């Protein structure tokens, strides 16, 4: 039986954009997306797609990607399809614009998961590179009452359980759980595959399912905000760097060592 897998993927501002392109609008308390740099699929979510595809390669799987947001760059969000995922479901609504908490996101994602009839395995990124919350997957697991394993660097499905190599501060541990389960993955999983030409062609023909909040069965009380955003600012860097000069690189290095000694740092 092919494994029925869901990948949760978020569209984010490209975290690799040059630091100078990062701007915020302090009054609106928002980050201004750079005009000429397209958004990307959150990097760890591409790792999640890769993890799902490895299971598909091994034993067959049906992979549904779900994303929620206000506006989507469709060609960006189709990347998982061109890598080899099967379906794309977009939860698109202006109501998401003011969502400052993961709680809201989790209600929508779980409602969509339930509407699709549930999954054997849900794979997520460890965190979104914009708000860096690392909360949504844990919230989805709690809300659906599923087993939850975080920080995977290898994900296998054997019989009716998932076996995960989970990163630990001093190595890794092998953790397993019966399906259904939710797993988050990290970049240590390895470079996600590139879309093939055939994959890209197939993805062009696929149309995503688009739902708004009204298509989903959510309890209004659960959409009440759990967080208030009071301020958003760019921290000041007040460090004055003293560049140590020398006749050449080696001399500068010697001067550096002497200075560190003088400061009793070494």
């Amino acid at each position, binding site marked *: 039986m092919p494994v029925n897998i869901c990948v949760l993927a978020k569209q984010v501002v490209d975290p690799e954009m040059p630091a100078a392109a*990062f701007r915020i609008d302090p009054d609106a308390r928002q980050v201004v997306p750079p005009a000429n740099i397209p958004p990307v699929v959150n990097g760890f979510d591409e790792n999640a797609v890769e993890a799902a595809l490895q299971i598909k390669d091994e034993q067959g799987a049906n992979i549904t990607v779900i994303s929620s947001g206000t506006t989507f760059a469709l060609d960006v969000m189709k990347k998982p399809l061109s890598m080899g995922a099967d379906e794309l479901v977009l939860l698109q609504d202006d109501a998401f614009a003011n969502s400052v908490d993961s709680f809201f996101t989790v209600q929508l994602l779980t409602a969509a998961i339930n509407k699709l009839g549930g999954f054997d395995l849900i794979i997520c990124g460890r965190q979104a590179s914009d708000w860096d919350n690392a909360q949504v997957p844990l919230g989805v697991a709690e809300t659906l009452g599923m087993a939850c394993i975080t920080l995977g660097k290898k994900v296998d499905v054997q019989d009716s359980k998932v076996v995960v190599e989970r990163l630990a501060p001093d*190595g890794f541990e092998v953790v397993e759980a019966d399906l259904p389960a939710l797993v988050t993955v990290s970049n240590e999983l390895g470079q996600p595959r590139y879309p093939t030409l055939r994959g890209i062609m197939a993805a062009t023909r696929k149309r995503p399912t688009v739902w708004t909040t009204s298509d989903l069965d959510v309890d209004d009380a659960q959409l009440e905000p759990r967080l208030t955003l009071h301020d958003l600012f760019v921290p000041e860097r007040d460090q004055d760097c*003293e560049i140590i000069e020398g006749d050449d690189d080696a001399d500068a290095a010697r001067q550096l060592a002497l200075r560190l000694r003088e400061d009793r740092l070494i």
Partner: protein
Amino acid sequence: MADATGILVFGDAPDGQLASTAQELLAAGRALADALNQELSIAVIGADVADAPQQAIAHGADKAYAVTNPALADYHPDLFLSAMQTVATEANPGIILIARNNEGRELAPRLAFRLGVGLAQDCLEVSADAETGRLLANRPVYGGSAIAVVSCTHTPQIAALRPKTYEPLDADASRSGQVVAFPVDIDAAAAKTRVVDVVKEEAEGIKLEDARIVVSGGRGLGGPEPFSQLEELAGLLGGAVGASRAAVDSGWVPANYQVGLTGKTITPDLYITVAISGASQHMAGCSGSKAIVAINKDADANIFKEARYGVVGDWEKVIPALMETVRELTQS
């Protein structure tokens, strides 16, 4: 919840000693408790927490719950979570503080969702709003490029604190407080995951997190071999070696060398970066260092905005000369 009051900190006590992250939470919690004129309590969780509750009182707690059950001998997220939920419900605090360490990363969000409340994640600073008495939390977003100030609308208000941002209070054995034995019921069937193997990949020598001096290498090193030079330099200085994510992703060093937002948080006295550009996500793990030294051939690299001392140059020339001088200095 009605009448919720006080600040509750969660801590653990590996080997019967109160963890340093718990001491940090107590320092943050003490300041909040004094500002709000409320009680600071801690829940120390384990099979046997020995005299960690007493240590917690010396570090600032007014009350310490010894939350015990034999099933809590080893960390298991599902079981610890169930113990935390029991204590949170019973103690009914207004504010809960949790460390965003390896365990807290999963426990804090899960507890918040279980209680149906919000979580201020990965906070650098927490304070009490002078007018409302609500918790205000500063947390980095976009890898540290910006800071958001958030508050929770529901109670308990939960904040997860980034490790090593608060300095523990000095232990004062004369402080008095109440230790409350709090044996909890744990249903072992609540454990939905099983650890079947543990693989250690620890580097030899001093641990990265504990080292007073750290030398880290980045993508500009161009391969795994130069790391042996960094190991040698670190050895001379009595320090440890770290790396950027780019070096880890290239497979030059194991994942547990990574410093940064999704790696380790370190606060050494001296942090020497070699061929690292200083991306915000890297700096998120090391900006608490007392002094940063940058060695980079690009004078415009961001790392020079974060460093106290910089050498603009090629590491292949800089590192051997640095090593030679350090050798002379440390042997004389």
